[in-house]
């Protein structure tokens, strides 16, 4: 591995040159992350141009969802692995961040215990469980955000891919995985706050989570992560390994017979996707201010898949478009017509699978690009 950064740079240019949608997306991302903070900070709150903190947080939330959607698209769109349990990795990353934030509350909790979070005092626990040790240090928390989802994906993927569980069966057991985790996290004596989860965070790295500056910073960090995540995935797809991965999607047995280690490719892609989901979850929690076990619910994970499907599978930027569209619709509907939301979402599922197999992005542009590749599920 002695390639210079210049070589990577040229690869990136090459990858983006072939990716018009990606260039558009990255350009928009840069513009948004420049304009949103400015509109939030500069105009007076009374001005029509002013963006409220709420809107900033909302866009930040959508961006974490977009990251999650990219992670799902990476394995589903390019490798044919339909995970119905990616919400679990997202939530695990979120919980790791939540644990750090809980430890930061310190004596400001309701019970004022310097070590134990409120819910432990409430449950009459005397000392911190071993798995909570170290979460008061931010670097350790960051490590866990990557390690926990990564390790789970590694073990799960290793077992699943080695025994060649694929297709629908894999989808069903990923769903069972997130379901089992949901049941586990709902239990009070697991040490993760039971069904209330974590909330009431005070500050991150010493900066108050309520202040505008912290929110803007979090927003920018999220935007940066989203961009980096996109570029990373694009680089992988454009690389030799990316071609093998797509070959596996289209003809798994043929790729195996040619001599590629199909299981290894699948495994590391799966782990990477889980890690990206975990990071997205970690960015989600400080902005939204709460994490609870319902994030693990199987329905949530299926919803992620529909973001990707609506946006357009196997494009990466389509996933971003899908995540924004569906979640904006959700925000709108749950506010304006709460009872209509599930009808709308349900209809979306049906209509998109029946009439828009390439998603919104596919319907709008790049028809020849898709026609060449017969996506297989």
């Amino acid at each position: 591995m002695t390639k210079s950064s210049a070589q990577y740079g040229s690869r990136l240019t090459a990858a983006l040159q072939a990716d018009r949608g990606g260039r558009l997306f990255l350009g928009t991302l840069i513009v948004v992350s420049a304009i949103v903070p400015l509109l939030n900070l500069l105009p007076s709150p009374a001005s029509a141009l002013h963006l409220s903190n709420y809107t900033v947080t909302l866009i930040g939330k959508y961006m974490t969802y977009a990251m999650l959607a990219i992670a799902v698209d990476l394995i589903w769109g390019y490798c044919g692995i339909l995970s119905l349990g990616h919400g679990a990795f997202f939530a695990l990353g979120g919980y790791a961040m939540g644990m750090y934030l809980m430890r930061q509350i310190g004596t400001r909790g309701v019970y004022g215990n310097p070590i134990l979070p409120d819910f432990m005092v409430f449950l009459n626990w005397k000392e911190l469980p071993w798995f909570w040790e170290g979460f008061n240090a931010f670097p350790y928390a960051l490590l866990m955000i990557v390690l926990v989802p990564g390790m789970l994906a590694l073990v799960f993927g290793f077992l699943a891919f080695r025994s060649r569980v694929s297709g629908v069966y894999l989808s069903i057991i990923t769903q069972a995985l997130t379901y089992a985790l949901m049941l586990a996290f709902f239990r009070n004596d697991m040490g993760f706050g039971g069904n209330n989860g974590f909330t009431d965070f005070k500050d991150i790295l010493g900066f108050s989570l309520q202040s505008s500056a912290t929110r803007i910073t979090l927003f920018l960090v999220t935007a940066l992560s989203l961009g980096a995540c996109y570029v990373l995935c694009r680089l992988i797809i454009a690389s030799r390994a990316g071609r093998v991965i797509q070959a596996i999607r289209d003809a798994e047995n043929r790729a195996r017979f040619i001599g590629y280690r199909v299981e290894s490719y699948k495994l590391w892609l799966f782990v990477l996707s889980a890690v990206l989901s975990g990071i997205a979850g970690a960015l989600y929690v400080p902005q939204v201010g709460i994490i609870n076990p319902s994030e693990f619910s199987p329905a949530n994970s299926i919803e992620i898949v529909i973001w990707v499907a609506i946006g357009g599978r196997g494009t990466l930027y389509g996933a971003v478009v899908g995540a924004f569209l569906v979640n904006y619709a959700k925000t709108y509907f749950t506010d304006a017509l709460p009872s209509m939301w599930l009808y709308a979402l349900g209809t979306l599922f049906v209509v998109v699978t029946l009439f828009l197999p390439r998603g919104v992005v596919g319907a709008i542009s790049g028809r020849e690009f898709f026609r060449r590749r017969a996506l297989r599920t």
Partner: protein
Amino acid sequence: MTRPRDCTVSLIMLLAAVVSIAGVPAAVRAAEPIAATAPAAVPPAVADQAPPGDQAPARDQGMAALLAQLPEASYADKRTLIGHLTALRDPRVRGVLKAMLDGNLYVRSSDGRVLIAVPPGEGQGDSTDNQLRLLDPLTAAAAGTAAAEDLSTIGVNNQLRKVLRVALAQFDLASPDTAVRLAAVKEMLRALDTDGQTVLRERIKQETDAGVKREIQVGLALADLDAPDAATRLGAVRALSGSLNPDVYNRLSAMVQPSSDGSYGESDPEVRAAAKADLHSIERSRTFYAAIQTILYGLSQGSVLVLAAIGLAITFGVMGVINMAHGELMMLGAYTTYVVQLLMPQHIGASILVAIPLAFLVSGLAGIAIERGIVRHLYGRPLETLLATFGVSLILQQAVRDIFSANNRPVETPEWLAGSLQINEVLAITYNRLYIIVFTFALFLVLLAVLKRTRLGLEVRAVSQNRAMAKAMGVRTEWVDALTFGLGSGIAGVAGVALSQLTNVGPNLGQSYIVDSFMVVVFGGVGNLWGTEVGGNALGVVNKLLEPYSGAVLAKIFVLVFLILFIQRRPRGLFPQKGRAADG
């Protein structure tokens, strides 16, 4: 109970009147000799026979005399009087005691006669003007009516009620009805005195029913444990061997438990050894029955899983279609039950039986609509089918929320499903658990028969194995697809009816089963009905076996993790399909 004895009626009434006027002291003198000799002289069995004719006047006289003392007696005296009355072994006494227990025994203020009031609502008593219909306790003849103000109740306290219940039980011992006798024995054992023991010892000689006999034996043996004589105690301990009565266990444990000063509740070492042996065998059979109970509970829980999964075994297992709306089709079945009960509130018992075919139709038609509208276009694309049907499930959930509200709906349980079957003192199983096991197995057999023995089943199997060939042979594959999907969906509806008796009927009913049911189908082996049946029941039993150690939620998590690992080991399930069908 009472036979008309017209010739004596007038005499009795005359006597009763005389006695009640004559006052208490004379009556006590008259009553005492009879009371003292009665228990030994008259065996309890005569209680169901009419007293022999020649003794009747004396008996009536005694009874009347005792009754006459009741109004003036203190509670302690009443207790003695009840003892004496019981000792008469006269069936008429039962009516008196029962009335006394229920607070229906009165004294008429005008003449001081003791009379039984017929509770209002019974017979044609005119309760509007507060008149009570009265009966004479000796003759059971109507004794006119009286306003409540003209009567005073013969009061009882809690202690007396207990005495009365035991006394009534002694009468019931002679009842021809086994259940009544058993209840009577149990009542007597609650407060067993020496008199009661004598009565029971007499009774056991003529008792024919084994259950009642055993109950009496255990009760008497328990009483004998207090005997001063070690041989009697030993005999009692031996007699108690194998009894599962919790009292027996407690008493025996107390006997062999050393107290702080090293002495035992039981002083004789031989008796103690026998008690220990008894305890050992009791513990063994307790463990045995506890295991049976766990397995039965596990089977019933497994049956719920099978119910949820068996429709899926058709749509997913045979057709290969992932129907995420399967849970919602069950939900439709459960709501059908609710609607049927709304429509026929007078016949809750029959409502379930009406709901079963109706739910099959409702869910089956919904299933066919889903197949024709959506699934048909997505054959060969299982992941898209999954997403589209998940969309359908969301729409159905919200539809139910809008129509029936988001809250759970109350579905009533018919009487024949309530209650439990008591097999012995430590093993009981509720009827709904029992029925669910039977029902699931019946449903499974029906489905198996449809698939293996009917034309439709043949075509379904043909299409699932080789669609093109089946088509070439003239099978209308589209028609078969729709019917198969409808069948699987209809079965889901029937499962929903059963689930409505076990869980809450709400919009989330389906979602809570969907993961489980897919796991069951995959665990059992896709395309294999037997696999689903065996797999579901096995999972239920494993779950119940784990529960005592880990708690319900953790047990479920363990089972899920086990399943995830199992599918890694054997991706084709417990009973993989052999042959070409497995190639897909």
